[in-house]
Every structure is written in C-alpha cells, then in structure tokens.
C-alpha cells in the first residue's frame, strides 16, 4: 500500500496541485474549463496536474452527460491522518489548530 502513499505525497508536493485541491475544496465538482478560469496555468498544465491528482486518488471524477466533473476526494488524506494521529490526540490537535487560526487572525487585524 506504500506505493499508493508515495503517489499521494508526490502529488501533494507541487504548489500548483495543492492550489487545484484548494479550488475544489472551495467549489467541488468543477469541469476542466471551470478550473482553468482565474488560473495562470495553461490548460495543458492543469490537465497534467489533474491526471497526477487523479492517479493519487486525491481527485475523483464523475461523468455527467458530456461533462467530466472533478471532486476533491478526502479519503487519502484521511487515511494518512488515521495512520499517524491517534483518535485521542485528535480533539487536542483541533483545539490547537483553532487557537492558531484565531491568534493569527487577530495579528492580521
């Protein structure tokens, strides 16, 4: 199963691909055309990055008629969390993450 994990980490290693995941998180189920809007990447580059994300199963695709829709698949990242984070640590980590977000927002303001 570690070969599958390698693909996930490799896919996550590029900022362009993380940006695509952020876009899907904000608006799930987009076509290639929708994803290309407001991006400086070429359509070919987006296609290439999506292919790697799909191979790593970080992106799932569904055909709706003639449109191929892209969805953020949370399972691989969840499985990584399950592997290295115990269930009892989770609550505390969430509290810390919320504290960090709050303190950083205060500093920004």
């Amino acid at each position, binding site marked *: 199963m570690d070969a*599958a994990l390698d693909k996930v980490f490799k896919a996550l290693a590029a900022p362009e691909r993380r940006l695509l995941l952020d876009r899907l998180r904000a608006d*799930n*189920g987009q076509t290639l055309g929708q994803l290309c809007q407001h991006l400086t990447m070429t359509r070919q580059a987006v296609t290439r990055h999506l292919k790697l994300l799909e191979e790593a*199963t970080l992106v*799932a695709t*569904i055909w*709706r008629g003639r449109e191929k*829709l892209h*969805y953020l*698949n*949370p*399972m691989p990242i*969840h*499985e990584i969390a*399950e592997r290295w984070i115990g*269930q009892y640590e989770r609550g505390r980590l969430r509290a810390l993450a919320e504290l960090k977000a709050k303190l950083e927002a205060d500093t920004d303001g």
Partner: protein
Amino acid sequence: MAESQFVYVTFIRTTPEKLWRALLEPEFTRQFWMGTTQESDWKPGAAWRIAKPDGSTADSGEVLEIEPCRKLVLKWQNEMFPEMTAEGYSRMTYELEQKGETVKLTVTHEMEKRDSKLIKAVSGGWPMILASLKSLLETGESFEGTRRWPDGM
C-alpha cells in the same frame, strides 16, 4: 447537477461480495458505523433506515436502485436534527468496481440544495466510517472510535 455533492473514493483489498455484505449487514455495520444497523428489504421501492443502538432512527428513506455487489442508490433523509430533516431527501450512491486485487468503492452523497447542512454534516462522517470499513476488511479490525454510538447524541 446537484447543488451540494461530495464524492469519496477508496480502494479496499477485498472482494465485491464481502464489501457488499459489510455495507449492508448488521454484524459488520455495527463495527465501523457507530454501532448502527441498516434495515431494509433491499429491493427497489423498499423502505430503508439507519437504526441507532437504542433502536431509534438516525436516517430514513427508500431504496431507489439496487444491483447486488455492484450498485446501491438510496433516498436519504436525516431524522435526528430538525434543520436537516427540513432539507428533505438527499441521494446516496455506492458503486463497487473490481480493480485488480482491490475493489474501488465510490460513495456519492448529493442534494439539490445549495450549502446543504446534511451534506456538510455527513462530509465529516463519511471519511471516518469508510476508513474504518477499509481497516475492518483488510485487517479484521475497525477503528475503536467507530464501534459505538457517541455519548449524548
């Protein structure tokens, strides 16, 4: 196109037959789905519900499509939180596909409503339940946190 939709894909080292049983049968669902069971006659048009360990209903609906070991489509309404019940029915689909030594399980949960509270709420639960199901089938053990209904719910 559905207004709120999540898609979950996971690859499980098992057979479509075993995965199908694990998704439907009480002795399996209890282990990875918070101690709950699913009740239905499992044919198109049949009523369906998720029963909590105390017997009360968490979610209810109807079987829309069923193709054993391949596909299940359910009409799904939450029965626990009035603001979610008020949203009406969502649609949940399981698709099972053999891929070499694994089975690709695709779970789609969608609703014709923008920013659905139900879809948002289940989006936190599905990854946990599916990861636990995968663990159960591959190692014989589900995750401890998914074996019983949470206190106070």
